[in-house]
């Protein structure tokens, strides 16, 4: 096992990684922005904190040179990049290799292949996995191309950024008349966010479930499937509620998804933890490959809850060539059901406007069937520079119904003052008939008028 690890990240995931390191007896060095070095929970828990830059991500968490210089000087054996920021950045993985430090994740070659949506699709196709009809969108939008889009793909279509992620640089186009302006807008947004305005156009499944498969690539090349998750509760392509196992899959579809995920991961030469995302057409039962997330996911706790596997710990074990736990190797069937709500500092009544500020009261729920992953504490000032995630509330139960009951109890017990949160909104959603009967598809939230708080 490693002696010392650098964590160039923040918020709840930095706390999560430090926790895994402590259990493994690994020293932790936190590479933090000035504001996080000063006030974050991770800074208080880490063995050592190094200020690497100013509060804006570009100055700190996205600063490859600063992170590599810090890794070198702090004498770490490995870097765990967490999620977001540079967690899938080939330059960071490559830089780690150059300075003789391990990157806890897949190798740079895999990150390169996976980071380009067009390449990833091609690899999926070659692995025999269904992909949604689609193609690269060239800027000219010739009449021929428009005809092809209508006949081969069919509306509605989704325009995506080739080098993008996180739901940005995406536009839904329902008719040919909108295509030109939507493409221009998407290209501009993608250019600004990802440095590239290259676009991809894909058939959009109107009633879709977002189902993803957790994979783990071992050094031997073997790919293990740890489980699946349903992340259909989304708002503007951002996940809000996730659950494991995916509740609408029958045995056959589950096997198909797991096999496809394994096939894609194997074709990629995937190593360490990753997630293969699929779109499942609720109406027809067809599924299509969406993308590979070559990193730890925010929603990993729901898989941990139903399998007993510590995914972050497993990442370290695989990365340093150590033994993984028998639970990972033997893979007993998953037990029970787990649901996660991403509690954000946002005001649902005002279009989910971010609400940074000072937390007055902070009393998360505490019970045997609830896990809360958070970096918050009473008096913490939620900074405006980063995402608005305050905590992940994970409730589990022997059945999905029980997990729902436990989640409602947990959200009712959660007391926060000082900032607006999505707690009430998520409580209403989890209590709804639609959620109980698994009728929620990925555009459902966007299509609803505002739901009453409390449910």
């Amino acid at each position: 096992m490693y002696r010392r690890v650098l964590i160039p990240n923040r918020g709840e995931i930095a706390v999560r990684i430090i926790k895994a390191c402590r259990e493994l007896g690994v020293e932790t060095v936190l590479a933090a922005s000035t504001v996080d070095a000063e006030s974050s929970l991770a800074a208080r828990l880490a063995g050592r904190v190094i200020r690497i830059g100013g509060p804006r991500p570009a100055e700190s968490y996205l600063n490859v040179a600063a992170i590599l210089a810090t890794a070198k000087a702090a004498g770490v054996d490995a870097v765990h990049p967490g999620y977001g920021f540079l967690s899938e950045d080939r330059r960071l993985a490559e830089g780690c290799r150059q300075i003789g430090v391990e990157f806890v994740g897949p190798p740079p070659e895999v990150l390169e292949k996976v980071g380009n949506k067009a390449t990833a699709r091609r690899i999926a196709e070659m692995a025999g996995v269904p992909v949604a009809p689609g193609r690269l969108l060239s800027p000219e939008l010739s009449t021929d191309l428009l005809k092809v889009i209508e006949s081969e793909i069919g509306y509605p279509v989704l325009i995506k950024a080739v080098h993008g992620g996180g739901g940005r640089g995406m536009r839904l186009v329902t008719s040919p008349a909108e295509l030109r302006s939507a493409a221009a807008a998407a290209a501009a947004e993608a250019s600004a966010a990802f440095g590239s305005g290259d676009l991809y156009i894909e058939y959009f499944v109107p009633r879709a479930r977002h189902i993803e498969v957790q994979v783990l690539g071992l050094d031997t090349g073997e790919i293990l499937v740890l489980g699946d998750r349903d992340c259909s509760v989304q708002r503007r392509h951002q996940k809000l509620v996730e659950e494991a196992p995916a509740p609408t899959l029958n045995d056959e579809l589950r096997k198909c998804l797991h096999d496809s995920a394994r096939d894609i991961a194997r074709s990629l030469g995937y190593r360490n933890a990753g997630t293969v995302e699929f779109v499942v057409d609720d109406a027809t039962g067809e599924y299509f490959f969406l993308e590979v997330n070559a990193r730890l996911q925010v929603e990993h706790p729901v898989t941990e809850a139903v399998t007993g596997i510590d995914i972050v710990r497993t990442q370290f074990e695989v990365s340093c060539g150590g033994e993984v736990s028998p639970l990972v190797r033997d893979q007993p069937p998953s037990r029970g059901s787990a649901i996660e709500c991403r509690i954000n500092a946002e005001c649902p009544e005002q279009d989910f406007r971010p609400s940074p500020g000072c937390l007055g009261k902070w009393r998360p729920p505490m019970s045997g069937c609830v896990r809360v992953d958070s970096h918050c504490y009473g008096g913490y000032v939620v900074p405006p520079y980063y995402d608005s995630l305050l905590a992940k509330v994970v409730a589990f139960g022997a059945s999905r119904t029980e997990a729902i009951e436990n989640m409602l109890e947990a959200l009712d017990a959660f007391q926060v003052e000082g900032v607006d949160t999505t707690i009430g909104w998520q409580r209403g959603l989890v209590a709804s008939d639609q959620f109980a009967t698994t009728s929620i598809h990925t555009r459902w939230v966007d299509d609803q008028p505002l739901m009453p708080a409390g449910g």
Partner: protein
Amino acid sequence: MSDDWLELVTELLEAASERGDVDYLEVVKGDLQIRFGRGGATPREIGTLPTTRPATERVVAPAVASSPATAATPSVPVAVGERDGTILVRSPMVGTFYRAPAPGESPFVEIGTSVDRETTLGLVEAMKIFTAIKADVDGVVEEIFHQNSDFVEFEEPMFRIRLK
């Protein structure tokens, strides 16, 4: 002192002396704290081990660099106060501090050097990217807080300038 303790303290002294720049070691047993530093009578604190382990366990000084790939000495967070008539110039970047433009050349400034807004006081390097530390004020260098090749954090106090 019990055998365990004697062994621990000996190990710490060995680790500290291996560093070559440590001449002060303090171990406080209740709620275990370990401080080490340099500076003789008024030592500047180099590292403090957080109390995450019970006092009976062995503890390794955290700032000792283990990897041979480490080029710079580990960070030396400096406790520096304000002083009337002076300002602190802080590092614009995390990285390795260099006092001279190149190895073998004279340092950019010494204590007593007159500087103006445009004067380069030193360089900070991260992965071969060099950034100049500018004085940004008119004055005289009064204190220099770091040595050549020190690894420094972002906004680390580097120089004290007495304003004209």
